[in-house]
């Protein structure tokens, strides 16, 4: 069975800027995949190349085994893209936009599915409103709806929650999760690393057009981030512990790998006669992974 997305040696230059540099990436069917990276890393260019909005200079892109250039009709039918920019056609109502979009994909009589999407995205009451009259958040929902009219098995969302309120974010993710559980492959770019951490089973990080990290979310967290015991004490902690620790305004940060190391550390502090005023345990998070990968400390560790 072919992968949901297979990207092979894809490069793309805009003038002298190398937006994509020999990118290889494979997303399996049913995955919830995160594509992360700072602005200008090439995420949107990669998505655009996949969607046929730009043509790669070299390499090939496949959606469920169909080349996006040679077999573009099949590839585009299998792909739903939510663009990053908040775009809309001011001439039409929400329902008209969705019916027209269905027609572009060759689908007639799509009302039943359109109603279902509208319902799931909380848009039912706005179905007959003109696009111009909608708030930014509502327009964003319509963009998601437009990407889903043809029931694509592979759905790509390019920063779908940028500038979106909490309620919509939750509605949106609940819906996308249900689609994923129903077998749709989801690819997501976001700047909210917490979202990626919670949703994605696998993550690729892009930097200057190259994939600099690619692993399961759990592995990435384990590899680049650790648990951390943070303490505020009334005096210096024992030198043995202070060596591996970072100090910041009366707080000591002591990294550890396993929880059975915590008690011995506390025992040593107690034995040294230190009083603990405050204590917390930090969990590994994607933000730390992201910062460390982008700083290039682990470049070359692509797996």
């Amino acid at each position, binding site marked *: 069975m072919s992968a949901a997305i297979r990207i092979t040696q894809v490069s793309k230059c805009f003038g002298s800027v190398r937006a994509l540099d020999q990118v290889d990436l494979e997303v399996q069917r049913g995955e919830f995949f995160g594509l992360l990276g700072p602005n200008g890393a090439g995420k949107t260019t990669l998505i655009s190349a996949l969607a046929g909005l730009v043509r790669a200079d070299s390499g090939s892109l496949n959606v469920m085994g169909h080349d996006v250039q040679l077999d573009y009709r099949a590839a585009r039918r299998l792909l739903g893209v939510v663009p990053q920019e908040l775009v809309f056609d001011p001439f039409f109502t929400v329902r008209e936009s969705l019916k027209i979009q269905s*027609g*572009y*994909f060759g689908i007639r009589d799509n009302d039943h599915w359109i109603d279902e999407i509208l319902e799931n995205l909380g848009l039912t009451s706005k179905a007959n409103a003109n696009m111009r009259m909608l708030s930014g958040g509502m327009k964003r929902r319509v963009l998601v709806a437009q990407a889903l009219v043809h029931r694509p098995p592979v759905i790509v969302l390019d920063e779908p929650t940028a500038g979106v309120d909490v309620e919509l974010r939750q509605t949106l993710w609940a819906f996308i999760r249900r689609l994923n559980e129903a077998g749709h492959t989801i690819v997501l770019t976001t700047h909210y690393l917490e979202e990626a951490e919670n949703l994605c089973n696998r993550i690729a990080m892009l930097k200057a057009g190259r994939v600099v990290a690619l692993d399961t979310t759990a592995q990435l967290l384990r590899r680049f981030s650790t648990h951390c015991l943070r303490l505020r004490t009334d005096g210096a902690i024992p030198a043995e512990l202070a060596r591996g620790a970072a100090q910041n305004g009366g707080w000591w940060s002591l990294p550890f790998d396993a929880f059975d190391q915590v008690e011995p550390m506390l025992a040593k502090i107690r034995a040294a006669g230190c009083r603990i005023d405050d204590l917390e345990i930090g969990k590994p998070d994607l933000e730390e992974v992201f910062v460390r990968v982008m700083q290039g400390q682990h470049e070359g560790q692509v797996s």
Partner: protein
Amino acid sequence: MGHGFSTLFYKEVLRFWKVASQTVGAPVLTALLYLLIFSHVLAGHVQVHGVVYTAFLIPGLVMMSVLQNAFANSSSSLIQSKVTGNIVFVLLPPISYLEFYLAYVLASVVRGLVVGAGVLLATFWFAPLDFAEPWWILVFALMGGAILGSLGVIAGIWADKFDQLAAFQNFLIMPLTFLSGVFYSVHSLPPFWQQVSHWNPVFYMIDGFRHGFFGVSDTSPWLSLAVVGSCLAVLTAFTLNLLKRGYKLRN
């Protein structure tokens, strides 16, 4: 042609029809004003091919409106979609470049014909009109609309900003349509300008179109058909090539 094509065509027609006062009403009014002013000034002084000036002028205004509005439809739709970004809605679906071309051009032809019919309705009772050879009327309206619709596609794809499109319209389309014998017979021009006019393809569109009304024209309608047909073939091939390469749209 699939359902994708017919939907895009329908959407393009719906787009101008939803703002018909601006896309149909306004050009009809403009043509009516031209007719009132020019016929007031010139009727009684000028006769062309033995036809009173007002009658001569009407088909010219009708065809000019067909051409200008065909151009306006595809070019303004594309530039608006590009500037606002909603062009992605037609680039993401599996619509072929041929379907894309035909949908935009046919919608332009429809807009041209609707406005042309509007101008004819608003003006035909100002002067007696024959419909001597109606097939020519239809053939030249369709082909002229398609040519300007194609030019509109080219301009809409090429222009990045509204002022670039305005330049295309003001410095190319307007001179070509105005200096084509809408308001006069080229036989009334000095020989040099007659020669120049014969290099303007719009002259043949208007001359052929007018032949359908009066059965007489500056040149043979068959020659006009050959020129207009060749122009359409060349422009179609050129535009299809741009679209096939994804020029500007997919880069």
